[in-house]
């Protein structure tokens, strides 16, 4: 029987025996496992007498930074009321120029990881998917408890309804807006329109005297006369967004059933919605086929601010964004640009716009939900909301703002406030994203000539039924 001998370590000194290797490796692994992570203060944790609150907000338009700054101001007000018992510290962020989808995804992932902020700003329709997994909390009890805090009791009642899902309120309106149809006064003048007629256009639209057929005829005329280039009679929104539903609503569309909260599609309205876009691009050629997918920052806005397009629909906030980002002097806008509701489908009909109220919500991750809500309530005052409104061209959410000196001085806000009487909202439904995706793709298909409007309606409804099942009502 042979005897095993230990290897000659002197000969192969660089070698490690298997036993030593195993022992050393095991010790290292054990040591690594036992090492604690560096001690750090709990994120936003409560320290003695101080509550740290965090909040995420977004523009994406740059001038909407008061969505963050108003919370910081509110913390100061709240601290005076609390008199140090406790003291609130606020860590608020504002995303400028980003994408809504990325922002919402970031919040979703943070909520699952229990690292979401105490307060989140989002569109009212974004709240619906967050209710199921309880990423945000219902606010009804807090609203009742702190009714006198800030301007909570003065919120415009219709805006509260946009914050509700299944009877519960999940957000406090932060701002709202209208989405006007802008028009170039200088180009209409070139076409021979009188100043009175140009200035009277918003009123004529409001009364239903100047409707969609007039709009199309004017745009065609502008192209024919060479006042604008081909396809530059009308620019619609080049990407996804609530704006596209203005033309569906204009033609009698409905999006959500009030009794069941299910999503609704009205086939006749959808056909007309598709038809006006198909006509604009393919038949009347008042809108360029390139509109679908056009780069907003590099093409859409530079072209419209350059005065090369007769009509273009956009948000009220873009009025300030054109000044801030595209460096158009305000006086130049007043001199050359007008704004009106989306004209009614036919004369005598009702014009329309769409609003998309943003809201502050309290997350389930909030350490002190009462304080988080009180922070929001103190950011909801005529003074703070008005300074946000005038800076970013968003409309009032409080009945008291109309008397606020800052708000009253803003000509643009006063001139667009009436549009809220004609406004519609997009649905609060967890599956609205699916609905929107299908309709947006089919809108692209009719604009690109891949489908006729009639084919698109049939296919779109079939696709919606397949994807949404019982959650869809077809009318």
């Amino acid at each position: 029987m042979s005897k095993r001998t230990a290897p000659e370590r002197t000969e192969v000194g660089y070698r490690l025996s298997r036993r030593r290797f195993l022992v050393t490796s095991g010790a290292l692994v054990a040591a690594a496992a036992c090492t604690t992570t560096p001690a750090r203060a709990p994120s936003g944790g409560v320290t003695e007498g101080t509550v740290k609150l965090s909040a995420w907000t977004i523009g994406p338009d740059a001038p909407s930074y008061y969505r963050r700054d108003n919370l910081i101001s509110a913390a100061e007000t709240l601290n005076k009321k609390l008199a140090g018992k406790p003291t609130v510290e606020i860590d608020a962020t504002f995303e400028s120029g980003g994408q809504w989808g990325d922002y919402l995804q970031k919040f979703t992932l943070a909520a699952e990881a229990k690292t979401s902020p105490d307060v989140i700003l989002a569109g009212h329709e974004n709240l619906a998917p967050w209710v199921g997994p309880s990423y945000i909390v219902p606010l009804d009890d807090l609203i009742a408890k702190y009714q006198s805090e800030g301007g909570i009791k003065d919120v415009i009642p219709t805006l509260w309804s946009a914050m509700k899902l299944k009877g519960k309120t999940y957000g406090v309106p932060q701002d709202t807006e209208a989405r006007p149809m802008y028009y170039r006064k200088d180009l209409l003048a070139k076409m021979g329109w009188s100043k009175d007629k140009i200035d009277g256009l918003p009123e004529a639209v409001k009364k239903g005297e100047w409707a969609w057929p007039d709009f199309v005829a004017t745009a065609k005329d502008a192209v024919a006369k060479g006042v604008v280039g081909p396809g530059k009679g009308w620019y619609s929104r080049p990407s996804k967004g609530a704006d596209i539903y203005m033309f569906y609503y204009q033609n009698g569309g409905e999006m959500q059933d009030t009794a069941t909260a299910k999503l609704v599609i009205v086939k006749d309205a959808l056909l007309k919605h598709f038809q006006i876009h198909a006509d604009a691009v393919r038949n009347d050629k008042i809108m360029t086929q390139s509109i679908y997918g056009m780069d907003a920052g590099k093409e859409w806005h530079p072209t419209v601010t350059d005065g090369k397009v007769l009509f273009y629909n956009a948000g009220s906030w873009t009025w300030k964004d054109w000044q801030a980002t595209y460096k158009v002097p305000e006086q130049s806008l007043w001199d050359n640009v007008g704004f009106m509701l989306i004209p009614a489908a036919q004369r005598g009909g009702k014009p329309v716009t769409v609003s998309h109220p943003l809201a502050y919500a309290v997350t389930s991750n909030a350490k002190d939900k009462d304080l988080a809500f009180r922070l929001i309530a103190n950011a909801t005052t005529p003074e703070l909301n008005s300074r946000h409104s005038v800076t970013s061209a968003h409309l009032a959410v409080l009945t008291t703002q109309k008397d606020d000196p800052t708000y009253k001085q803003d000509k643009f806000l006063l001139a667009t406030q009436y549009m809220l009487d004609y406004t519609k909202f997009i649905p609060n439904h967890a599956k609205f994203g699916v609905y929107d995706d299908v309709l947006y793709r089919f809108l692209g298909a009719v604009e690109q000539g891949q489908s006729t409007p009639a084919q698109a309606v049939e296919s779109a409804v079939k696709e919606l039924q397949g994807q949404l099942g019982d959650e869809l009502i077809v009318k």
Partner: protein
Amino acid sequence: MARTEAIALPRERQGAAWWRTNATALLFMGPAMVLVLVFFLAPVVITFVMSFTDLATSTGLSNWQWIGSANYERMFRSQFWFTILGNTLVYVAIVLAFNVVVGLGVALLSLHVEPKAGGVFRALWLLPRISPSVVYALMWTWAAASPPFGMLNYIVAPFGLEPRFWLQSDPWLIVILINGFVGASFGMLILTSAIKAIPEDLFRAARVDGANALQIVRRITLPLVKWPILFVLVYQTMSLFASYEYILLTTNGGPGLYGTETWSVWAFHTALANYYGNLDFAYGAAMSAILVLLGLGISIVLLRVFRFGQLVAEPRVEVD
């Protein structure tokens, strides 16, 4: 028999002996095995499991339910699954052909010119690969922008072509070129080194025998780089099936009705990119599961077509 019984070890000692023999190998392979399990196998298993649930933003991790095959039924209820599958196969086939043919062409050409010039030529082809994906894609979107913008419009103008919004009028051309140029550089790298590894004697002998360049490529180079070509084909096929970023950043699957939407872009849009925030994780997972099966099936076909078994077989003649 008695002899066998005499040397048989008790079970526990058998185990100890096995451990002595294999412990080091296992320890060295362990980290790699853990990585494969955690980053390759586990995601596939999780994807398949998730595809049988209704997990979405609106359910979160706390509120989901098992829903059986409902996601698969929903997927095949869509009128567009066949269009998207067709898009995927066409995209993979054309880009793959572009990658391999252009990659091989660049490798051969750059090795048949003066070495320094060949190196510079290959370095230029590497630029798309070393550029950050987003920067590279954005440069393409700007180059293909609608008139009067877009560098492509200026390039084609002297040839009498009308200016156009290339991402809309010719979306596939842009998608194929943007992916093709990146992929070609991969093929070029692998095949350049493979061709360089062929013993020079073979080329000299062929030239002595009077073979021209084309005959040398056909009779010597190509048969000897068959294995690297197979590698490039299989690897690029898998990469292309799963790739989505350049399509997402340029055409975003459009224009219109899933114009350039491939299966992976569809899965990404569904699971991770909803404009109104309700991410349909489970439905997207069902789409990804189909993609895994598709990729697996095509890999097996490719390996059989190229007789992978023969390529990796022990050589019949032992060379020392």
